[in-house]
């Protein structure tokens, strides 16, 4: 692997190849809607997507645009705007292979990859139909217990690509994530991390010790692309809030395939304008 690269948004998105296992963060954590737009424009097919651990408008767009073959998530929802319409339609149409999970199981499976171990044990889960439907999880015995003590073993998940958006990146590939440490876990676990950033700065984000604790080191970042307002219509940390009106327009439009397509045309049209 070569050193960290600074790429254009389209070149960065082109590194997500068909069939990739793609990890994306929840709506409140730093979603790269800019790269989502580029993926849709490119029409990358057969993505397997892992939501860490939930998603909303991003996954609904990827599904609606026909990019997603398989999905693993603890939940898909537009929150107060209701169900994710393209997700719901794809489930009904049988066009999406869905694996239900639960939030801490996603975190634990990524931590297993982070630690380079084949699995992690996790409490809970026993007796749920999630476990019943997961042929890849193992119901085992706690090897340290003297009495009967069943526990679930979760195999490690190693995403091919972690894709997310941050406020700042520097030229060493260090990126500011603040308290959103699920982004660090995703990046540690993934083979490659592709990151879009509001701005790329010329100083090292690790220079100031008071803010260094919120930095994901460039060691984990393959490439960065600059994308101002790259989370829109979602919000980004303290920088800008979600565009509630646009999200409501999406929720309404995406109730039909035609409405979704019309909204998507507008979304793709912002590409050159952005």
């Amino acid at each position, binding site marked *: 692997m070569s050193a960290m690269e600074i790429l254009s948004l389209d070149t960065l998105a082109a590194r997500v190849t068909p069939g990739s296992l793609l990890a994306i963060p929840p709506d409140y954590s730093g979603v790269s809607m800019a790269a989502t737009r580029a993926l849709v424009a490119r029409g990358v097919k057969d993505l397997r997507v892992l939501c860490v651990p939930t998603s909303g408008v991003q996954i609904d767009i990827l599904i609606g645009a026909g990019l997603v073959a398989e999905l693993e998530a603890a*939940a898909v929802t537009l929150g107060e705007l209701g169900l994710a319409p393209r997700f719901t339609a794809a489930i009904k149409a049988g066009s999406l292979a869905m694996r239900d999970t639960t939030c801490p199981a996603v*975190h634990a499976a990524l931590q297993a990859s982070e630690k380079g171990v084949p699995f992690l044990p996790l409490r809970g*889960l026993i007796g749920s139909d999630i476990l019943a439907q997961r042929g890849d999880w193992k119901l085992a015995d706690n090897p340290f217990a003297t009495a009967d003590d069943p526990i679930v073993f979760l195999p490690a998940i190693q995403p091919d690509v972690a894709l997310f958006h941050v406020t700042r990146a520097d030229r060493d590939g260090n990126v500011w994530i603040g308290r959103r440490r699920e982004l660090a876990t995703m990046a540690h676990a993934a083979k490659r991390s592709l990151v879009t950033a509001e701005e790329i700065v010329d100083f090292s984000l690790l220079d100031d010790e008071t803010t260094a604790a919120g930095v994901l080191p460039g060691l984990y970042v393959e490439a960065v692309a600059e994308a101002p307002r790259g989370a829109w219509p979602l919000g980004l940390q303290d920088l800008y809030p979600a565009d509630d009106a646009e999200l409501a327009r999406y929720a309404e439009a995406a109730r039909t395939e035609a409405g979704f397509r019309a909204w998507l045309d507008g979304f793709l049209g912002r590409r050159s304008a952005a």
Partner: protein
Amino acid sequence: MDRARTELLIVAIARLLEGCRTVAVGASSPIPGSAALLARAKSKGALRVLMLGSRRHNAFTDGGRELFDSAAQGRIDAFFLGGGQIDGQANINLVGIGEPPRWQQRFPGSFGSAYLYFLVPRVILFREEHTPRVLVPKVDFISSPGTSVPEVYRPGGPHALVTGRCIFSFDKERCRFSLASIHPGETADSVRAQTGFDYDEGATVLQTMAPEPGNLELLRGRVADEVAETYPRFAASLLGRKAA
């Protein structure tokens, strides 16, 4: 729902949190969130609230896993769960009605329920809609079971079920709900008619206690202001808060 009913539910849930040290509240939960903040105000700050979506009441700094890890460490005393379906054994279904993979109706998904329901001692089930459609004899999909066999590690589980009509308490030994109190406007019969599962009922049925004036004052004042940080529309419309 009207403002009086909202206030009744918030105050009733806050009572269920008495004695807790740390209460966590998931996303999109204005009524449980308001109840937690009210319980905190009543405790004079001894009760800690961790509310997803809040900035002021969210002390987590270890990412999305920290709520789950801290629950496993025994640091979270109470949490709230809902359900597209809830059955008489307190099993909850957040995934779908019908059969996988296509479902008759698909819900968002299980979130952290299959974990927190096992590990948080006092889980309060909350669902405003109280109809046979929601409160069913048996859920179509178990996002998380209400009880477990003794060998399963399970310090946590259901404590009560609060709906728009009543409050049920849950008996883990008997694995059954019991009618604890009914809200104004309901009768024992009207509740039973709207409940799809069987449950226990005492000889006399209590009314859910009306909000005490002091609690209402706290809720409409300081708590409404705190709620507004995370749920501004809810605070304005259902807690009657005037924007500052």
